[in-house]
């Protein structure tokens, strides 16, 4: 990822890879194969079967995948997942980046603000869901506050209304995630060269210009991590939706992960659930591969 260090590194590398290095690679790789990939292969196989968790799985070919695309709940969940990926990913990355830039330079109060923003991260997603469920109750904090400032017309049953349920959960998820992304970007910003920024400020560059042309290009490394984390988290989102709405009311806040869990563990349609998982995995892979190909090209060019 860095062009600067490349020549030096090439010199330092041993021509033949020592045996012990293979061991260094093999042990972790095999642990991951055993704990992750081998079960995954089983799941991929399961997506081609009909299985209820007991006895033998019955191979059915691609029938599960064919059924998926005539399943309205699945298609709705797919659409919600797009909304979720854009809303959750977009808001937490933009919010996190904006806050990181705002809170980057040391000044009075910055430590407190930073702490306030990333404190939610210490709570598990299930607990976060629980917190917010209380706030969203019909007589909860949010409606009470709206009433207090004279906006009674806006009071809603946030989680019971199919038009608002998904977004209500989204707000809670973003509330927790923003601090996390901010921390990552703060780390990235510390790695940028402040003299460049100061120099361009002397040259009369506006704040936006300095960010766009000086800071942003230096954040490429951290962007990769933020991107990977955001895609992983948005496609795997489960606990918080499960804790707040369980995908309801009538599937309006259903995501692929919650639908998969319901199919797999409430209905024991494990073959069908595995097919949904394969779709999630494929989507994540498309995102990541597209990005990495671009990143690699940039690096090469």
């Amino acid at each position, binding site marked *: 990822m860095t062009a600067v260090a490349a020549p030096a590194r090439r010199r330092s590398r041993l021509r033949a890879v020592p045996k012990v290095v293979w061991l260094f690679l093999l042990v972790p790789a095999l642990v991951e194969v055993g704990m992750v990939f081998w079960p995954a292969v089983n799941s991929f196989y399961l997506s081609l079967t009909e299985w209820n968790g007991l006895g033998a799985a019955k191979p059915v070919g691609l029938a599960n995948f064919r059924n998926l695309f005539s399943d309205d709940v699945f298609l709705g969940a797919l659409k919600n997942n797009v909304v979720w990926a854009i809303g959750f990913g977009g808001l937490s990355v933009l919010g996190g980046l904006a806050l990181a830039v705002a809170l980057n330079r040391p000044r009075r109060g910055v430590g407190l603000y930073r702490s306030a923003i990333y404190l939610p991260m210490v709570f598990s997603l299930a607990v976060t869901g629980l917190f917010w469920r209380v706030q969203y109750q019909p007589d909860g904090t949010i409606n009470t506050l709206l009433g207090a400032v004279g906006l009674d017309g806006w009071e809603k049953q946030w989680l019971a209304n199919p038009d608002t349920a998904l977004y209500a959960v989204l707000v809670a998820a973003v509330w927790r995630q923003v601090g996390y992304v901010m921390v990552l970007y703060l780390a990235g910003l510390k790695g940028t060269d402040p003299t460049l920024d100061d120099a361009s400020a002397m040259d009369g560059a506006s704040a936006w210009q300095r960010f766009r042309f000086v800071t942003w290009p230096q954040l490429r490394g951290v962007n*990769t991590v933020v991107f990977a984390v955001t895609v992983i988290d948005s496609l795997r989102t489960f606990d918080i939706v499960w804790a707040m709405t369980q995908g309801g009311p009538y599937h309006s806040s259903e995501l692929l992960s919650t639908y998969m869990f319901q199919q797999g563990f409430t209905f024991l349609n494990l073959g069908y659930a595995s097919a949904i998982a394969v779709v999630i995995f494929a989507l994540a892979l498309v995102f990541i591969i597209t990005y990495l190909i671009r990143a690699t090209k940039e690096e090469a060019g």
Partner: protein
Amino acid sequence: MTAATLDPVRQDTVASGTPPNRKRRRWGFHAVMAPLAVIWVAPMVFVLMLAFRSFDDIAGRGTAALPTSFSLDGFREAFGRGEMGRALWISVQVTVPAVIITLLLASWAAYALSRFEIPGRRAILLTMLAGNLLPPQILLIPVSRVMESLGLYDTLVALIAIHVGFGLGFYTFVLYGFMRSLPGELTEAARIDGAGVVSIYARIIMPLCRPSLAALAALATTWIFNDLIWAITVLRTEAKLPVTAALLNLQGGYVSNWNVVAAASVIAAVPTAIVFFAFQRHFVSGLLVGSSK
């Protein structure tokens, strides 16, 4: 908590003797940040208040009302019948070894991939990262079968193993970026002095990676400590459940006892909060992923 957030702001604006233009900008900064911080902290303050209210107060006046009671019943119940104390200790027993083993193994893999010409190393790295993209829900059944065939089902070792396996990809990816950014001259000199591959790893690379490892350790702690789904997959004995699963049990039983659930949530968050704040300094230098410094 709210007051603490606001106080320094007020002092700051009063005491500053800076030129009017910068002063105005500072005002603007605090005018935006202070309310934002309050909004961010508000839900947590709210839960904290809920945890200290009595059951009758909540049942009679609703969850949104300002507290008129102060009671430790929520905490007493959470530690007593909810057995949060035992669950916390279990979580520590899982989290500490899991974090150490994962980071150790990830640093091995990252070292091998970043400092040596291993064929297809980029593909290996991406494949390992891809493992992290798998939605965990669907691996639940196969994973519990794997654990069983290893004779590990319903042991804490199983939970540690699965956390190690599932974290490796991401940590390797981050450490790889960090190690690649270390200048080659450092190891070159040691190599010429006759240091072996292992001693270069142990004496040069690992110490240099300390900030990155610290940052990842903090992240890993919050992830592993807050995990729910793997815990309930590979464990079935109540006495072995970590804190998040114990909290779930508690929610099932105390659904209308908001003070107990809130108290337990607060208890569950304290250890991660401590770790996070203890390590927060390292974040600034720890995640410089491949940046050209």
